[in-house]
């Protein structure tokens, strides 16, 4: 079920607040715990955007570094997870732009590690990755984040740093374009 993570994370936000306060005082254990508790979400966001485990690992590492170094300047009245998702999206986009081959990120490792193991599923996943790679960057990021199933349009907009209506437009256009690209697969 798609949820807005900013609304139902009250207890987690409290725990994060305590960890953040300790980490800002120089507590190394608190810093490590913050990184370990949030790395999964960071990795999932990076992998959704990049489609490659090596790049996702790099982006995750960079996002955690930025998070840990930015704790001193973080305003604790803000939502920590939304702030971290924004960092993760920015790091993933940075990696995406550094790629020599542009936006293409599908590698064998990604396809092979997908749970859907039959050849047709691999072919479909490859086609989806290639289709996403051909979308404009904002459409690709919006569609990938929204497809994660954890973020609603508002949370996706917060992570991308733009208005909710803009994200909705990106998602709709990207979805329609991808549906045309995958017509051979979807009509079988």
């Amino acid at each position, binding site marked *: 079920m*798609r949820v807005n993570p900013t609304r139902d994370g009250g207890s987690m936000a409290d725990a994060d607040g305590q960890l953040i306060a300790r980490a800002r005082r120089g507590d*190394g254990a608190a*810093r*490590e715990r913050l*990184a*370990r508790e949030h*790395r*999964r979400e960071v*990795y*999932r966001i990076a*992998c*959704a955007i990049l*489609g490659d*485990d090596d790049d*996702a*690992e*790099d982006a*995750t*590492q*960079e996002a*955690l*570094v930025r998070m*840990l*170094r930015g704790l001193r300047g973080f305003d604790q009245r803000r939502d920590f997870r939304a702030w971290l998702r924004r960092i993760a999206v920015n790091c993933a986009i940075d990696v995406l732009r550094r790629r020599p081959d542009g936006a293409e990120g599908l590698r064998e490792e990604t396809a092979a*590690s*997908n*749970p*859907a193991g039959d050849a047709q*599923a691999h072919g*479909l*996943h490859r*086609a*989806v*990755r290639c289709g*996403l790679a051909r979308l404009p960057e904002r459409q690709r990021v919006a*569609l*990938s984040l*929204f*497809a*994660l*199933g954890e973020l*609603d*349009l508002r949370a996706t907009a917060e992570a991308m740093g733009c208005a909710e209506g803009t994200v*909705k437009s990106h*998602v*709709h256009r990207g*979805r*329609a374009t*991808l*549906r045309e690209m*995958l*017509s051979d*697969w*979807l*009509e079988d």
Partner: protein
Amino acid sequence: MRCDEARELMHEALDGSAEAREALDGHLADCAGCAAEFAALQGAQQAVAATVDREPPEERMERATVAALALVGERRRSPWAALAAAAAVLLAFGLGLCAGRSAWPRDVVRVERVPQVVERIVEREVPVEVPVVRERVVVRRVPVVRERIVYRDRSVAPAQVAPAAPREPVMPEMREERIVARPMAITVTQSEEVMPAPVAAEEPPADDEVGAGPDAPEGERLALDTSASESERIVQ
């Protein structure tokens, strides 16, 4: 509901709007084209979700976390690490001195002061074509190389140092060659460089004999006057 309205609602329904889905269902039951389109859009959405929604590999997350923590930790410890490294170097140096093992070779007992050339200016004058003047005197400049070497340490005489082989042949100081030409056509090749060595080996002709002989070959008439000073001028 028209089909274009239904197309608008399809994306809203796929975004999660229950109202849009409810309004759309009635149209989809009656319109096969819109139903197929909605199924295709839904399939695209599900395919994207199945592709991007993956459980992260634990070892990769652990590697990224450890690397990030190390990077942040290194940044905090870096001033102390630099101090520790400097202290270690000093300690090793001190221990080496105490053990009588200097860092420098033992056979070096005296360092000779060698003047260092800090400035080396080499000037060369190219032959200049000078028009034949009214007195029929052709003045031709000989290529001259001036070399000035400035030593950094003036307390050390340059003679103590073995002279290095000059890069350029050192020519005599500024000298003008005066060639007296006869009125008849005398061709002087201005680009020709005149070297002093062959001339010095020969008997220098008398001043009044230079170019005086009408029957002398042209090569003799163009002989150098090595004894003439700069201010002297030989006029026929």
